[in-house]
């Protein structure tokens, strides 16, 4: 016997209206976090607004100018298998493939995961490395934010009351790119103890641009412009990679938790970064 109301609107504005009207309402996407929290009695929302029937949140579309729009309700397994994710965008498929287990990937959605903003989850670091735009709609209309501005802290985003993530836009990446999502987890399916998302722009075998982002190493995805600058355009010697890794380790702000201590995370970041960059290059341009 619960007093939680359940809504399943067909239109996005209806959903936004329901969420705006009741600050104790929660949107339900794939349910992989929300349902677990309900079961653990960490949440008892007055209403649940299911997003499953809203067509506007579904699909993956190529847009003019070569960017790719991914509907918020797209599942992790759909992204992991998506042929639309090419070039630099492969990074997102690699990250999606490492989320949880198959059953979770079949239900969980990118919109839900992004809005939940767990810094140890796999999408945030990948989306920041891809300079993705997070598409938002709320009672005051539509807006979009670059991923690195969207993630504000532990389980905290730029979303205002009543706002929903409606999609993710991947801008065209480098013409030739190599990617790698490197993740350390205690067991397969766990959240990352630490992860590294890498996108390298390549031209005639040279690294022309680099985006490196850490997951699980702070309350938001961690970047280091300096680290990216020393990788782009330089010969990737061990010393250069080490330097980049150390810069990222210095930028990181990890905590002690059951997955590992902050000191351990700092200690492994340089090695993980070097491995991620080397793996990306070894795979070559996609």
């Amino acid at each position, binding site marked *: 016997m619960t007093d939680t109301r359940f809504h399943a609107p067909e239109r996005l504005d209806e959903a936004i209206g329901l969420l705006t009207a009741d600050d104790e309402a929660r949107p339900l996407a794939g349910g992989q976090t929300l349902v677990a929290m309900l079961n653990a009695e960490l949440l008892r929302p007055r209403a649940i607004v299911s997003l499953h029937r809203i067509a506007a949140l579904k699909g993956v579309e190529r847009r003019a100018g070569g960017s790719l729009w991914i509907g918020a309700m797209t599942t992790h397994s759909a992204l992991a298998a998506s042929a639309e994710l090419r070039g630099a965008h492969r990074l997102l498929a690699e990250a999606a493939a490492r989320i949880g287990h198959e059953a979770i990937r079949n239900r969980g959605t990118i919109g839900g995961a992004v809005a939940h903003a767990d810094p140890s989850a796999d999408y945030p670091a990948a989306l920041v490395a891809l300079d993705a735009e997070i598409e938002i709609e709320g009672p005051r209309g539509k807006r979009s934010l670059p991923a690195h501005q969207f993630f504000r802290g532990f389980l905290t985003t730029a979303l205002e009351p009543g706002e929903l993530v409606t999609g993710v836009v991947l801008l065209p990446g480098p013409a030739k790119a190599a990617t790698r999502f490197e993740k350390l987890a205690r067991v397969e399916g766990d959240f990352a103890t630490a992860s590294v998302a890498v996108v390298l722009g390549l031209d005639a075998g040279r690294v022309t641009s680099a985006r490196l982002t850490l997951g699980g190493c702070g309350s938001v995805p961690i970047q280091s412009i300096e680290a990216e600058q020393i990788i782009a355009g330089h010969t990737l010697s061990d010393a250069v990679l080490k330097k980049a890794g150390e810069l990222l380790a210095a930028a990181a702000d990890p905590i002690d938790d059951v997955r*590992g201590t902050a000191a351990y995370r700092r200690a492994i970041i340089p090695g993980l970064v070097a491995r991620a960059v080397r793996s990306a290059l070894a795979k070559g341009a996609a």
Partner: protein
Amino acid sequence: MNTPAGPIGQSLPRLEAAEKASGAALYTGDMVLPGMLHGAIVQSPHAHARILGYDLSAALAVPGVRATVTGDDVDYRYMGLVVKDELAIAKGKVRYIGEPVAAVAAVDIETARRAAALIEVRYQPLPAVTAIEEAIKPEAPILHEDFAKYAKIYDAPTNRGNILAHSVATQGDPGKGFAAADVVVEATYQIAAQYHAYMEPVAALAAFDPSGKVTVWSSTQSIFRTQANLHECLGMPMTKIRCIAPRVGGGFGGKSEATVQPIAVLLARKAKAPVRVVLSRVEDMTTMRSRHPGWIRLKTGATRDGKLVARECELWFDGGAYADDSPAVMNFALFFVRGPYDIPNVHCEGYAVYTNKLRAGAFRGFGNPQMSFASECQIDELAKKLGMDPLELRRRNALPKGAKWFGGQEVKETALVEALDTIRERAGWAKPMPPASPGKKRGRGIACMAHSSAFLSTGAIIRLQNDGTIALQVGAVDIGQGSDTALAQMAASAFLLPVEQINLSTPDTDAVPYNSGTNASRVTYMVGKAVGEAAGKVRDQLLEHGAAMLAVKREEVALAEGGRVVVTGGSRRNAEVSFADIAGRSIWAVGGPITGSSGVMAQYLMDQGHTKMSGWLSFEAVGIFTFGAQVVEVEVDEVTGAVEVTRAVCVHDVGRAINPGATIGQIQGGFVQGLGYGLCEEMVWEEGRLANPSFMDYKIPSALEVPAEIECVLIEKPEPSHPFGARGVGEPPLVGAAAAIANAVADAIGKPVRQLPLTPERVLGAMLKP
């Protein structure tokens, strides 16, 4: 299909395979009775506090609430197997965060939970101790002020504060032994708390009948321990307590003693309606049990040529807030202080300590995995120092047949050398390993293990049914390990019948003979022994009746396949009579119903002349040793320290494998649980609060963490003391697994990691240590 020996030795599918695979199997949490209420618990937020009072008014005002229960509803009646120190529900004090302090029964679980949240308990917080080192300080707060008054089954320390057990044992002359040693290694090994992680969280359903008798269905490893605990903590006579186990989803030791049965009974009595209590995973993890954490300091001496001559051990186990099986687990760890080796001079001391945390209790291996981790790692450290092959060092020191166990019991059979020779071959021990993957270091490690199969007492009743089939009544609960099938196979073999003609009873204290419990790798051995004896008695009656009906001498008849007694010689050769006809004769005409019963007790004498022991429980009801060896190969990530087990070979002496498929399943499952213990499972407390009480934060290995094949080799040396030749296999595969992995990691990185689990962080820490 049947061989003349019947279905023994065949990998028959589980009797209940179809119902489990289809989801039809009935577990306690699936059961519903008319008018049944749902129970929810209230847990202590304090690690240590005096209970000042309760305000139940808000909870009772919730529509649908039928009853509440608190410490005010019980007397100071204590229960427990080893120390009687636990009440049905907290009264007077709470001693750990999460301890059930009140409960509610309501028309549905949501109402019960909501009402439970409205119960107000007033506490006076007390200083708490959440680590061994704090608990043993002279000024430490005392958890159990009445410890001296508690009933116990061992010689407990007095006036030792929170130390609830202290045991000492000496064999030979350790001083002389170490003096004769050319090489000595000494180290301290840290061991972590592992959660049982059974698939089914604990559950109980209690219903009173109009006569005042309560029936309790629960997820338990022992209906008789459940009955005894209810009797002790509620003061009800056993004539009024009936305990039944429906299907049980795993136990691993965690469901040996009381769980939520007392609370379910209290609620049912007060609400005057059936009440079902099913804990959530978080509640289960915060209120039940763990494997004992603690530390072991171990010192071993050997001569230059690799003969182990002396060992010294100091062991400390954190028992948590209630004793549960702690003294027994600690003693059992010391019982394996030598491992399976012939070490002539040994001194060991063990302690179990109360702390304000979850109680630690029985867990697959019962102290032996902790001791084996220390011992088997140390053997490798010793081998390294001696410049000797670790397998060879083990082989050279294997306890021979006829030698005495630590404590003085005779080891009547051993297959350890055979296991080592088999594994050397099978694992390619002498051959180089495949090269390591890029960025990884590869290593190989070995561990041996010994364990026991016989424990305590049990009985069996076998009845010939009217149609010639067999009813088998035993008190053993199949908790998922497959004992029902194994026992049915044994009974079927005794009568040369297919298993389909064996009717195995549901464990029910109203209907089956006593059995101590499904633990200690004992069901196949002990209950199988009782089945063999009872079957013999029924077989004798079948032959007597058969001979009379066929008008031949008793010596001229034998059992034949298909439920027949057949004349084996003479002029009436091949004349036969069916079991059904014999049953008819017995119940309608001559002799009375054919029934055979047995009661067996494990008894193996200790020898104080061999090992002087003080402060111990008696282990004379423990015996029949079994041996094995495991080899694993690992890859260690050079960047992160993460360990992947790439190969596992397990060689175990199982006596006769009653069901080889199930036996291999036990070995693989045991190894995997040992892999979790070795690499990733650790309950972590922060100031008395469990920091990872869910499967999101507490990680057990999945199929993806396990090598593609866990290679199992069964050594089948039939156990002479068992009617079907079997020995226990439930625990041995776990006992040495963590040590084998740790030894492989040490081989890979060149340094030992002496702390469980071997997390990437700990392994990397060892790698980076100068």
